[in-house]
């Protein structure tokens, strides 16, 4: 068994009075792909965003319980800059910055104080290679990133998140805005990345979770209803909602 990266203890999350997550207890293991599943509005994005503390930006958000990252309570961290370098995020809609392809990938490096040209160049190339985008963009690094296709933009966002050499990659339905071919590319990529990184992915596609994840977490109406190894749950689901998900009745 590998190490625990995240340990979530009795977590409640609120938007004003509304409890989006209730009593979540969960462990996320190193160098595995953990898929968070459930119908719309079940709190899966909220859970993912808690791991990067992105919900701090939302007025009215509050939280009870603990999220430990390698034993440290992340909601006690004062300076999030370094923490967010270690745990980066990719969003549902590709969000390339309004700058060149190169500068997009270099952005995270620059805010973490790396400014030397030669180092930037190496790291940008390395990140783009890891995101399987290098061959497609190596001749147009100076071009605006918005000119790329949707799938390329999403891989660029993955490259941008990888460039800062994180330990965990969080992905919030990264393929829901993409066509099937681009989706397949990203799924293959994630499987490769899981050899080096801990990957947590929110998805509403049962197929995607079965194809790529090692562990799966089912959320329903803000509660965790089942979690464990994907292969085990696929064969012997314990909970009625999970069964319905697997047979395609919901989801």
């Amino acid at each position, binding site marked *: 068994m590998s190490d625990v990266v995240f340990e979530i203890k009795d977590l409640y999350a609120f938007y004003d009075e509304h409890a989006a997550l209730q009593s979540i207890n969960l462990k996320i293991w190193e160098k595995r792909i953990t898929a968070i599943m459930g119908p719309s509005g079940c709190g899966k994005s909220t859970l993912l965003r808690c791991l990067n503390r992105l919900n701090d930006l939302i007025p009215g958000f509050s939280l009870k319980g603990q999220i430990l990252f390698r034993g440290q309570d992340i909601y006690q961290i004062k300076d999030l800059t370094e923490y967010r370098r270690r745990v980066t995020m990719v969003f549902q809609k590709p969000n390339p910055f*309004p700058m060149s392809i190169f500068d997009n990938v270099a952005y995270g490096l620059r*805010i973490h104080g790396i400014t030397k040209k030669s180092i930037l160049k190496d790291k940008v190339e390395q990140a783009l290679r890891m995101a399987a985008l290098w061959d497609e963009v190596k001749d147009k690094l100076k071009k605006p990133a918005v000119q790329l296709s949707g799938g390329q933009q999403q891989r660029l966002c993955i490259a*941008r998140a990888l460039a*800062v050499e994180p330990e965990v990659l969080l992905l919030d339905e990264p393929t829901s805005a993409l066509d099937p071919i681009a989706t397949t590319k990203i799924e293959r990529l994630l499987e490769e990345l899981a050899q080096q990184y801990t990957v947590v992915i929110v998805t509403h596609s049962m197929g995607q979770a079965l194809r790529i994840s090692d562990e799966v977490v089912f959320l329903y109406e803000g509660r965790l209803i089942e979690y464990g190894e994907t292969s085990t749950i696929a064969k012997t689901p314990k909970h009625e909602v999970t069964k319905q998900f697997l047979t395609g009745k919901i989801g």
Partner: protein
Amino acid sequence: MRWTLRIISYGVFVVMLFVLVSIVVSGVPYFFRPGFFTAWPQRAMSEGGIFPMLIGSLMLMSLVFAISVPVGLIGTIFLSELAPRRISMFLKSLAGTMNSVPSIVYGVFGLAFFSVKLGFGTSLLSASLALSTMSIPFFMNSAVEFLRAVPKELREGVISLGANKLQATLMVLRASKNGILTSLMLTLGRAFSETAPILVTGAVFYSTKLPGKLTDPVMTLPTSIYAIVMNLGERSQWMAKAMASLMVLIMIAVYSLVQITRRNKRE
């Protein structure tokens, strides 16, 4: 029915086009008089050129630019990125209200506050402050929409990499820079053509010299048109026509530039 509508809408366009074209055409021939752009007006504005009005308007615009851009931009960022929602909504409607205040009211306010109370007198400074008082809410009202149109994923993307609020704000500005530029041009265009706020705060009908310091009065294009039309005889009217024509041409240029900026953004 369809034809009636067509005729009405074409009619409206024809009228608008007629107004613009006749203003421009009536003034353009005078541009070629010797010294029109470089000489001072003479003999009660019946001879000479518009040099001091042109320079005066430019000086005024530079000052309005220098005052409105930093203040307006900071205000816009505060409205869109920093202020709590309720305060932001309150300030936004305040700026909206200020936009519909008649411009002569800004003139009277400027006269009472900048000229008299603060003792700046009838001066370039009072006029530019009065114009800026009007321009800043106009700029904020328009620019804030462009900042708000930036998708929240962009802000979150920057923050999620470990950036701070300032870095996220810079990214938002970067993403909306064409929009901000558009707002800026529209604001300066409006300030350039406003007459009332400067009429009572800084503009004079005639001055023998260009303003050498901020407390000197200034001659400008729109106020000189007003002065000629109201006070002078037939022999001076050509100068008002020429200045009106020049101003319309400048405004057409500003709006074309705005269109080009917008088109670039779409691509």
